[in-house]
């Protein structure tokens, strides 16, 4: 038996804005993974000693590095927003018969995101 494969053009995601933004959401993972590779590099330089570490810190001050960070940040935040908006669709919570409204679940996620970010920024960046 041969299974049915629906044919569609490879550019299907350009035909409709919702498809396009779906694809953007999927592409965010490339930028986030790229940043993770950078984090490994950061740790590696840290393990090499002060000279290697400070050379990297200097490189981080370059306009190119800052520009890359801005681009990656935009995609990372887009991932965060889409992820939190998806959460209530996957995680359905009920109190008795009542289903907890999705905006509460998303809202709790957004709130936790902001709080965790503030705490981390404080712990890491402030002596």
């Amino acid at each position, binding site marked *: 038996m041969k299974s049915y494969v629906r044919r569609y053009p490879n550019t299907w995601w350009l035909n409709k804005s919702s498809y396009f933004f779906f694809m953007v959401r999927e*592409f965010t*993972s490339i930028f986030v*993974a790229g940043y993770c590779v950078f*984090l*490994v590099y950061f740790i590696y330089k840290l393990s090499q000693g002060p000279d290697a570490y400070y050379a990297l810190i200097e490189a981080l001050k370059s306009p190119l590095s800052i520009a890359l960070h801005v681009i990656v940040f935009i995609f990372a935040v887009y991932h965060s927003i889409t992820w939190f908006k998806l959460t209530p669709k996957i995680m359905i919570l009920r109190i008795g018969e009542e289903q907890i409204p999705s905006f509460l679940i998303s809202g709790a996620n957004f709130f936790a995101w902001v709080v965790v*970010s503030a705490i981390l920024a404080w712990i890491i960046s402030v002596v």
Partner: protein
Amino acid sequence: MGGRVRYPGLDNLGGIRMSKSNEPIWWSLFAAGGVVSAIFIPIFIVITGLILPSSLTGEEAFAFERIHEAAAHPIVRLLVFCLIVFPLFTFAHRFRSILADVGLMKIRPVISVFCYGFAIFGTIITAVVLWNLS
């Protein structure tokens, strides 16, 4: 968006005949990475891309001794491991779908091996680098 377009033949991972119970493992890693990326990655980008280069909180905050001592702590190393590794599996899962979605359906087995292979390779490298940090 029909699931048909998004995850065609999901139960048959990458066209490789594997037991159907394999997918939940990859999906769990994907989901864990999604959560980790969503909550923690943006602030790290702000720190290494804005706070650190601008010395917003002073030069001493990112002094070698301070960062090294903190990062070398076993629990911090474990957290950093999770921070780096899980998003790699989110990438693997999504990149595999992107390639299938733009018409590389026929070489799905190769794509799956390449994507998840990259994530596993990245996991090993991360473990080694963190292990050597001390």
